[in-house]
């Protein structure tokens, strides 16, 4: 019950307010009401020939959009304007200035006219166009042409600004102007869309182009009711009456009188302008999409490559894993039989044997050794994963490794030169593993020299270690992110005077089971393992032919990234 009361109260309150809103417009003040009583005669003038806004028809009756507005205003104010007729618009304007006419039913507001007129808010908006036979796309194309305007109309004022560039021809009314365009007496006419289409339609004039021009579009012709400057009260009265006309009414009036022949919209330069801008934007977007696409494609390609690579590495790692897992068990299972075979061969060798048997037994010996090597190599290979890391100086490891290899060098008459920098910073490393690597590399070097020639007196191995800065771009790229430009590295180089590598070998040298040694002498796991070990130390190993022109041989380089400060 309480809610119902509240609801009703709100309802009535809103209705009251609404009523007020609507009633507001036509609530004339006492002053205004008095003024109207005191001024029973108000002179008004209409343009004789300004269809569809206002014009005199054949029967002498004035009609049009503007007239309809005036009629409604008269009704609302309960008054009747007194019409004054004149020959033409110019005359009307003159009489208005002289105070003989009080109200102009339709007049465009401009600065010039503001001097002697009070304007209501514009109630009729009109779009300006250029009428012509030949197509003019913009106002500036009228330069040097004969352009018609109705005398003293808004367009006259507008075009007067271009007085120097355009030959302005003033005509008495819109129809005359259009007809002059049609017969070619003038090149174009500037007028408004509604007037022109009305005339064209009525007079069945064809072959004309209508071009709405941006500049004219912006300066839409806006018609207001004009009131003499010394009657401000009348201005507010008429304004109130105007405001009281509903938008439905306005639309009805408009539709009654405007048979707008739509100008083909693609002739609209503004439209064309917009379209081309849009087209440009679309083109740019299109190009962007294409480049983006290409970019993505190349990224996809490189990612695929990376993925492939990673995949291969993974497969390899898995293979190694499985080999590793097999090795321990296999090693044991294979080695015991091998041991038995060895013992057996040893025994048989101790017997009295003919030459054939001796040879056979020797071959069996070799075979056992070979088999053993493979197993041992596999074990090596499969043990790569874990490092036992301590900090130390890599020169120590190099020296220790050289000690172990010394006798091999002496045996082959190989001269050894070392140049190990004393200012190398310490490194986190697995000494045993690195020693393994160095021994492997030194042995390779020695064997390479041995293979070259036994009697060479310039058999030489050089071992260097120093701190360096990485500048080689290709190397940095090869490092796959391990090194950056100008990275400080410990660089160790081992040079031999062997035969060097052929092209094929250079590429495959670090592959597992790659070997240049004759059958039986090497399983080919050494370098592959070494590379892995170096990799685990966050380093890189390269093996190329020496750059010296006169000396053949191989140069092995080991790079280890240096972090932190150099220790003295």
């Amino acid at each position, binding site marked *: 019950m309480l809610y119902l009361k509240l609801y009703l109260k709100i309802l009535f309150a809103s209705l009251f307010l609404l009523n007020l809103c609507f009633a507001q417009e036509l609530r004339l003040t006492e002053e205004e009401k008095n003024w109207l009583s005191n001024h029973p005669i108000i002179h008004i003038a209409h343009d004789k020939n300004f269809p569809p806004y206002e014009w005199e028809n054949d029967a002498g009756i004035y009609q049009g959009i503007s007239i309809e507005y005036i009629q409604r205003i008269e009704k609302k104010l309960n008054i009747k304007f007194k019409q004054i007729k004149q020959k033409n618009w110019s005359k009307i304007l003159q009489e208005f200035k002289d105070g003989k006419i009080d109200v102009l039913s339709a007049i465009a507001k401009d600065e010039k006219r503001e001097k002697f007129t009070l304007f209501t808010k514009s109630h009729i908006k009109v779009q300006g166009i250029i009428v012509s036979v030949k197509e003019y796309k913009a106002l500036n194309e009228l330069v040097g042409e004969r352009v018609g305007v109705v005398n003293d109309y808004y367009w006259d004022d507008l075009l007067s600004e271009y007085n120097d560039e355009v030959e302005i021809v003033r005509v008495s009314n819109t129809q005359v102007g259009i007809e002059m365009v049609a017969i070619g007496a003038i090149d174009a006419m500037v007028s408004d869309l509604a007037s022109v289409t009305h005339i064209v339609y009525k007079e069945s004039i064809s072959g004309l182009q209508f071009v709405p021009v941006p500049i004219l579009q912006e300066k839409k012709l806006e018609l207001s009711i004009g009131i003499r400057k010394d009657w401000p009260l009348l201005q507010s009265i008429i304004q109130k009456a105007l405001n009281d006309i509903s938008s439905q009414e306005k639309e009805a009036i408009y539709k009654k009188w405007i048979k707008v022949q739509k100008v083909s919209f693609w002739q609209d330069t503004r439209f064309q302008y917009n379209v081309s801008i849009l087209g440009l934007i679309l083109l740019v977007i299109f190009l962007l999409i294409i480049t983006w696409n290409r970019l993505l494609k190349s990224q996809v390609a490189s990612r695929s490559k990376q993925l492939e690579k990673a995949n291969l590495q993974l497969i390899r790692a898995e293979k190694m894993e499985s080999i590793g897992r097999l090795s321990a068990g296999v090693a044991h299972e294979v080695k015991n039989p*091998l041991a038995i075979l060895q*013992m057996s061969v*040893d025994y048989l060798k101790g017997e009295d044997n003919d030459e054939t048997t001796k040879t056979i037994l020797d071959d069996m010996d070799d075979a056992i050794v070979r088999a053993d090597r493979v197993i041992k190599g596999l074990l090596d290979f499969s043990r790569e994963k874990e490092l036992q890391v301590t900090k130390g100086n890599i020169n120590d490891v190099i020296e220790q490794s050289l000690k172990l290899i010394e006798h091999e060098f002496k045996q082959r008459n190989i001269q050894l030169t070392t140049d190990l920098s004393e200012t190398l910073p310490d490194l986190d490393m697995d000494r045993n593993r690195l020693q393994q690597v160095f021994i492997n590399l030194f042995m390779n070097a020695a064997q390479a020299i041995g293979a070259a020639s036994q009697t060479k007196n310039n058999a030489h191995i050089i071992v260097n270690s120093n701190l360096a800065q990485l500048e080689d771009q290709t190397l940095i790229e090869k490092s796959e992110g391990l090194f950056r430009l100008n990275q400080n590295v410990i660089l160790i180089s081992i040079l031999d005077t062997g035969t060097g590598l052929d092209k094929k070998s250079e590429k495959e040298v670090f592959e597992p089971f790659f070997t240049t040694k004759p059958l039986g002498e090497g399983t080919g796991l050494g370098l592959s393992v070494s590379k892995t070990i170096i990799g685990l130390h966050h380093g890189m190993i390269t093996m190329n032919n020496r750059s010296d022109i006169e000396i053949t041989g191989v140069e092995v380089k080991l790079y280890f990234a240096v972090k932190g400060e150099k220790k003295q």
Partner: protein
Amino acid sequence: MTKKILVVDDEVVLTKMIKLNLERTGNYEVHTENEGSKALQAAREFKPDLIFMDVMMPDMAGDEVIAEIREDDNLSSIPYVFLTAIVSKTETEEMGNTIGGNEFLAKPVKTEELIETIERILD
């Protein structure tokens, strides 16, 4: 005088062959044992001059056996050499035949290597 060698390895045929080859030289008397757990007892009974011990045996690992033996004061001074199947190329050739201070030989081992080792240690 013949030197007494104890060979401990689970591989029966192997120990048989080692014994055969070593005794053929006439310099050695070889006792074989195929079970790690029984090696301590065998050592006590045989009192060898040197022990060859396989590392990987199913019942007991070789280094455990050695540890056991060395706890016995009577036996603690006996030199021993491990025989191992699971050692890599690196560990044999390149690191000298010691791992963790212990002497070892990698299978398959030649008879002459055995003899060389024995003579080196026992002289």
